[in-house]
């Protein structure tokens, strides 16, 4: 039997590009991304699958990277927050999160962006309740989620080609 920490090598598609990475086989996808691939945009809040902070997309579906072995991602398509902006331009979700202050401390933000992105890929016009359901596995302690819902709705509208602007009460409160 090889030593437990003998590195294994896998190939995967990461943020649209093929990569190869070698790591100790017990490592989670979270650890491989952060420690072996240097992509620290993926965060962790518990490393027990409880908070949703480490969510990334594997084959376009949100998964908790702290519960997935790196080895299980051989040949899969993995997307992290670093892969959202394209050509130096923010993804509409990133733009809306920044515009409305849906990212306060920003620690849970990458996971919310990816989970919301997966929702919008399946449902271009989600209701507020559908957004809540889709994001129910992600904890945020700063925002109370309100600005996150509003940012997802704003981004969804813009992704549908509408010239949407935030409501005045979103930014300034009710008169």
């Amino acid at each position, binding site marked *: 039997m090889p030593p437990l920490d003998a590195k294994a090598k896998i190939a995967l598609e990461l943020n649209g590009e093929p990569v190869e990475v070698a790591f100790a086989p017990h490592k989670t996808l979270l650890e491989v991304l952060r420690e072996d691939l240097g992509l*620290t945009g993926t965060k962790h809040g518990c490393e027990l699958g409880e908070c949703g902070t480490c969510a990334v997309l594997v084959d376009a579906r949100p998964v908790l990277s702290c519960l997935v072995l790196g080895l299980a991602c051989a040949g899969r398509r993995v997307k992290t927050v670093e892969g959202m902006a394209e050509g130096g331009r923010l993804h509409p979700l990133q733009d809306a999160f920044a*515009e409305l202050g849906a990212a306060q401390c*920003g620690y849970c933000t990458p996971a919310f962006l990816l989970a919301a992105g997966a929702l919008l890929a399946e449902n271009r016009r989600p209701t507020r309740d559908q957004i809540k359901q889709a994001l129910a596995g992600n904890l945020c*302690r700063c*925002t*109370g989620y309100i600005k996150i819902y509003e940012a997802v709705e704003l981004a969804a509208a813009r992704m549908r080609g509408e010239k949407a602007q935030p409501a005045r009460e979103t930014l300034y409160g009710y008169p």
Partner: protein
Amino acid sequence: MATRRKTAADRPPDRLTAAFRVVGKALRKVDATAKVVGATKFADDVALPRMLYAKLLRSPHPHARILGIDPSRAAALAGVKAVLTGKDLPIPFGILPVSQDEHALAPDKVRFVGDPVAAVAAVSEETASAALDLIDVTYEPLRPVTDATDAVTHPEPRIHDYGDGGNLHKLIDLEFGDVAEGFAAADLVREDLLFFEGSTHLPMEQHAAVADWSPDGKLTLWSSTQTPHYVHRALAKVLELSPAKIRVIATPNGGGFGGKSDPFSHEIVVAKLAMLTGRPVKITLTREEVFYCHRGRHPALMWVKTGVKRDGAITAMHFKSLLDGGGYGSYGVASTYYTGALQTVTYHVPRYKFQGARAFTNKPPCGPKRGHGTPQPRFALEVHLDKIAEQLGMDPAELRLKHLVPPNSLTANWLRIGSMGLGPCIRKVVAGSGWKEKFRKLPHGKGIGLACSSYITGAGLAIYWNPMPHSGVQLKCDRGGGVTVFCGSTEIGQGSDSILAVIVAEVLGVDPFDIAIVTGDTDLTPVDLGSYSSRVTLMTGNAAIQAAERARDIIARHAARKLELPAERLAFAERRVFDVENPARGLSFADAVQLAEAAEGTVGTVGSYTPPASPGRYRGAGVGPSPAYSYSACVAEVDVDPATGIVRVPRIFIAHDVGRSINAATVMGQIEGSVYMGLGEALMEEMAYRGNRNVVHKIPSLLEYKSPTTLEMCDVVTYVVEDPDPNGPFGAKECGQGPLLPVPPAVANAVYDAVGVRIDVVPITPEKVFKALRRKAKGEEPRFGPTAFPDIPWPDPTRVPPPWEGGDGKAVPLTPGASPGLDGARIPGHAPGVRDR
């Protein structure tokens, strides 16, 4: 420097009323892009070559003497580079000068399950964890103290050998006027007992720190701390290094809420391990360890007695609190004072007595959580007032509106109120929620409740009493028109970096995104005391205004010469310096900076801020004074299922007097986030321990510690009220903590409106509602709540006449044979005025 030193007081009044170019707009934060692309470097994202990993061995006992520690087997494990025990770090520390009661590693005694006793640095986290299992510790268990009441009745064995006797850490007795006389003059005197359960901050980012030691004797620490200045002090003290040889860099915090405001064991340990090994050392706490760091909301048992006239005017109030402090002091002395400080700043209280006690218990230490010591008494007071209003047959909103503290006044405990926007706040939530059509008129199971609150905008007195400023800003103008602002403040997600940018942009007429912000680095930035007590916008904002106005004066001098105009005629806006009477005549800001630099050299200025002196001059007057008080009013809607006791909150209306919005979008986020955290405390959050089973934490995990998800969070209708305060930058007051306070009492009052039972405890869990409904059905008191306040050996009171009784804010000497006080609370055996449904 030729510029005149200005203070908040002599600043021209037009700053409060002027039209603003940048201030008050809804802007994205200067760090928003970095956050949405995942580029923000949090402490655990820092990685250095040859870095080692540290782990802490924590006590499995709540209270025990350490008889011996043998780390030799751990030190011998391959890959282990250093092992530390208590004897390696013998100097105590603590956030407050009066509570230097912590050690980085317990030298002789452990005080809670999770108290650190040893540390390892190794080549990997796995190796460090394995080494912890090889450290042999011999403990002699002592009787644990499980809660505050247990601490009162069990003075021995003592958890600490200091404090106010036995296991009581701090006892306070303050009296502002003769409350007995006030109660005698009342038409109604009511007493209530309430309990506020402890809760924790639960920042999504686990605490992390990285230390680096250079052979030239320089230590650098990156840490997720809200208070780099105090970490700087603690490291210098414990490691016996010159502060000049220590650099503390506060990385952006992944949420703080007060939980990263103490200097922590793990920060000192990695620093020491880096010094010993000569290599960088990182530690990232597990989520379970974050629960042990805690410093969260103190569980508080409270007794309140208020006398009122028929119209609801308060004649006197007596408030008692007993706080469960956990194993160490932390901010606890201040927390205890805060449970009695702000009762007087919302409604006029002519006579006021406060008795507060903090107990040491064998649990993780409590400290400052969002609202620091004030959400508990605010819950008690606002529920108490709801009951009083019902007994008087008054609308609770009307009762409050009739007796508001006047603006620009002093309170009984000598707090100076400036702007006071609570009236408009109440009217907003009453109108918006349809209060008058709904209160006591909704069908059974549906309810509506109201509560109000106030909070400090920064503590008027610093933790270390000295004559130096609380906040400093340094500013440098670049030849290209860029500006760099340096400030010791710490970005914890609240938007403090953006506040600096907006304020400097407003004064210098540039774009906020032309401004580079450097914060939270003790080598680079002037001291700001830290992100706590809602102080940052007001204090750094005033310091930034001063620095920016000094730069503007320099630039204006030389632009005026070039334009052949008096400097007073120049305006700064749109990246230009121009004639207010002929805007076409002007210079670009960059050209104006170049003229100034050519004439005077580098354009660099400083600004600083010190809060005004407080009029209170008695012992204990240090907690409560603030340059300005924010105000909030809240109406909560609830649905209560009478069959299960489950409470759902569909919507909360919140109005907050922020003085002046600096960044409207950030203000909205702070208010909504405060409502969220208040809702969690109202309904579900609790630090629960198994008192009978080794005082272990029941639920040190994010799954079992219930916090609101998207499915529990309510809709929020927010009203921003702006009553500018002369002490605030452009009139601004705080908004990050205050709006939390009225939420738990508003929910409790709404539950009563819905089903006619009083839940005098938060969190308001289904079990408590169900039990109270059962009692109601049986004809018993329809209430769930505490029934007794223990006898506490209060000290002699400090007697301070309130301002309207003369005096100068100082205590008066005790007269011999004075009344022994009003101990031994009694609760009426009946609940008056409960509706019959």
